[in-house]
């Protein structure tokens, strides 16, 4: 299962942190820093997977942003790697060419996107069409 999802920029600023298990605030901060430290030193020749404590991080870099998913060691690496990409394509569509600032100013909407696609540490919905339809419907509500 997914233990947490992090979106960080290269400077280590967190653009999204979604936790699927209980950590206290100090522990969360430590995890954020550790993930940044292990992920940013890697280059394109490296794999998209890093062992991390007793888990592993599956990550992918898009421009200046690192999208990281922490999962159990027995989980399927490629499935989560593509789950990241699927998520990024949805964000891109939803924000029309998403950029880092969209995630900053609309942080509360990003959580909605996450909850549509991932819930309780599992993949909830994978169809981009279905997710976007739902998001547009929610957007129209007030």
């Amino acid at each position, binding site marked *: 299962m997914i233990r947490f999802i992090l979106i960080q920029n290269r400077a280590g600023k967190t653009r999204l942190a979604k936790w699927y298990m209980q950590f206290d605030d100090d522990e969360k901060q430590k995890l954020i820093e550790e993930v940044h430290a292990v992920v940013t030193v890697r280059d394109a020749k490296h794999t998209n*997977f890093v*062992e991390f404590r007793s888990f592993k991080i599956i990550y992918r870099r898009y421009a200046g942003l690192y999208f990281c998913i922490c999962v159990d060691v027995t989980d399927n690496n490629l499935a989560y790697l593509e789950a990241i990409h699927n998520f990024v394509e949805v964000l891109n569509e939803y924000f029309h060419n998403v950029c880092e*600032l969209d995630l900053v100013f609309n942080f509360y909407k990003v959580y909605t996107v996450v909850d549509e696609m991932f819930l309780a540490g599992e993949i*909830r919905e*994978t169809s981009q069409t279905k997710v976007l339809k739902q998001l547009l419907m929610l957007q129209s*509500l007030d």
Partner: protein
Amino acid sequence: MPAVSKGDGMRGLAVFISDIRNCKSKEAEIKRINKELANIRSKFKGDKALDGYSKKKYVCKLLFIFLLGHDIDFGHMEAVNLLSSNKYTEKQIGYLFISVLVNSNSELIRLINNAIKNDLASRNPTFMCLALHCIANVGSREMAEAFAGEIPRILVAGDTMDSVKQSAALCLLRLYKTSPDLVLMGEWTSRVVHLLNDQHMGVVTAAISLITCLSQKNPDEFKTCVSLAVSRLSRIVSSASTDLQDYTYYFVPAPWLSCKLLRLLQCYPPPEDGAVKGRLVECLETILNKAQEPPKSKKVQHSNAKNAILFEAISLIIHYDSEPNLLVRACNQLGQFLQHRETNLRYLALESMCTLASSEFSHEAVKTHIETVINALKTERDVSVRQRAADLLYAMCDRSNAKQIVAEMLSYLETADYSIREEMVLKVAILAEKYAVDYSWYVDTILNLIRIAGDYVSEEVWYRVIQIVINRDDVQGYAAKTVFEALQAPACHENMVKVGGYILGEFGNLIAGDPRSSPLIQFNLLHSKFHLCSVPTRALLLSAYIKFINLFPETKPTIQEVLRSDSQIRNSDVELQQRAVEYLKLSSIASTDVLATVLEEMPPFPERESSILAKLKKKKGPGAVSVSELEDGKREGGELNGGGERVTDASAIAASNASTPSPSADLLGLRSAAPVGSAAPSAGSLLVDVFSEAGPVAPSSGVTDDNFLSDLEPATEPSDTLLVEAPTESDSTPSSSSLGSEDPAPPLPESDELLNKFVCKNNGVLFENQLLQIGIKSEYRQNLGRMYLFYGNKTSVQFVSFTTALNVQTKPVEPLVEGGAQVQQVINIECLSDFIEAPLLNIKFRYGGALQNITLKLPVTINKFFQPTEMASQDFFQRWKQLSLPQQEAQKIFKANNAMDTEVLKAKLLGLGTALLENVDPNPENFVCAGVIQTKAQQVGCLLRLEPNAQAQMYRLTLRSSKDTVSKRLCELLAQQF
């Protein structure tokens, strides 16, 4: 500011975020935040009621401030108020604030639960989803208590919207994980399983995660999911790349769902139904075929999605481990990936192949890729890939390729990353030992290991090489020669000095004939390293020196000179000073004979599991080294130590007087004084453990680890004790001849019952009558055991002609037992193969002229040689099914003899020696245990299941093991215990 330009946000929030971003310093940011917090506080406290929009905006600002890393101590109530708004955007911010900020034991939970309850009942799918997401995100016990009953109903109701079903399924999963006791699936089970058939693929995708988790915990109740999963998978796999429309990802139909389906199937053994199995095998073949087809897109997303399914399919094939054809195909496919230009694929192929290497069907196929893997070890840029290559080499190693693999790993070590060196060292050491055919190769390898990566060579590794050299006389000369040569290097690792000191101290004489390594040259070589070494190594070297005096009398003056020097005899370190003083004294006053006896060559070490393996296992964390690997290691490693003399006997149990294996130690008369407690080995240290057999080590000695003569030291008056007990050893007469012709009595009628008392415990009173009490303390490890028998004379009169005899070989005890006194006898036990009958212990003595003749069963039962095995539920049931031959199982149904108290049962099962496995049996009332019986001849894996029926006061006990006699015997023994 893109968000504002989109015109759908909260303007005030966007302005605030911009302000924060424009702050030039941390101080400015804090100032701006404090200003905002003051503003929000005054709004919330103000008399004017805030409208929903403002409330939403301020709560959202607070959330933003919190996410920046600042504490928020107000606003919770306003957030909770937002929950009851009927506007989606307000409700959403309220729920978000609560999901992020409210910890699960907040006092607000009651209010929140109330709002959730309303939303769940609202029949508005958007609100229902928000509420379900909140439960899934917070997942507290209070929420489970409030909603665990309601959510399954929502999940299976016919009129629930698909998106709500998806959320409900995963929400339930979260609650099941936090509070499994509150989520009762019972009546819903079948309807939940049938969600696998749902038309909506999203519902299946979400529900299958729930079903997988529930199946892991309750495989039997959910086993109908197997055929449903297979047919769903088959429909996806055989669909054209565009059939599934929304669920096709880069021309791959439903990749995530396929992976989840294959993962669910890994909770179960292969389907028993032939048709289902055939269909599944067809799916797996199709997936393997597709890997060979030309890609439908050049995009990496396409190949990743396709390969995600492929790797999951291979995992399933490995999990089944029963289709040789598929296993070999999987291996070939992975072999192709080993050379793929994508680093990810090379990494995953190495990882996956590691598990294939342990299957008997694919081991050989894996081995064909050895050159590629070695190349990966040398050339991969990513250390984690090299690590996987090293793991795979370790996994594919066997006798045929051990030399090549060990050589490659050694040369890799020279440049290996620091982070993985220690593990590499352990692996090399294990492989070298496990597959050593000639021991000179083994010695070379370990010495190379010390030379190349001395800092990473843990004590276990060098202890082990010494053990092996001591136990194998064919390699001792070579070891002495090699270590002598290694010490010639100007810079030597300290571990090399330790090994050198130990080996030359024991076997330097074997190379002393060569003038180039004459005794004095050997000594000077060792002593030239002395000053560069730490205290423990120096202590070891001092012991080597005293051994030299014994081996080579001509070195005595030189060595005494060294010992006498101020830097030794007045060394500020107590340990070194004490050794110098004692060794000097010993060398001056003891006669040559005494010296030769005291400093005799080390006796062979008892055979045992390599502690290196244990260390690797610990390093890799539980579960990383599979039980089978461990067993394998022992089986193969065992051959190494077979060289020692060992008391054997026709009976399966060999018993000997404890003094036999280490005569020199017993000379000091310490054994009889050895309290049982002191014999407990300190974890991980082989040598200490060996010494403890020889008596307690002086508490003052701080370097027992390296101190191979430490058992000499506690004797404060060495010259006295040296002489005390030696004669008793030689002139003791066999018991039966001194006693006359009386035959041993037949076993007492109660001897079986007495035996049964000790099945689940090791210490206690074995026997008692008016005259005599016999106490027992015993301890077991692997196939070895040691038993202390205490014979207490309860009378005030001497017992004369006191003898004891086992129906296996034994040595006598003191023939006199004074009134009120106790004598002790130590029996070393080795289990050669499994057995049924316990050894008989016959005790005879004269009490006031009358001959007493008692025969008891020595409480040694097969379960004493259990080694507990921890395993997960899945493994347990897999093994359980593997042991399904009728003769492998023994079962008894019997009435409870004692109260059916769970804690007592647990204690007994633990006392049995097995691992008590929690959360394995779907029925929490039942107990399941696993363990391996260690005998010299073989290891017998055993699984146990005890099902109490409190109403009937009955138990059903089932034993399965790979050996029918063992299952039967254990069943008989255990049926008496409950």
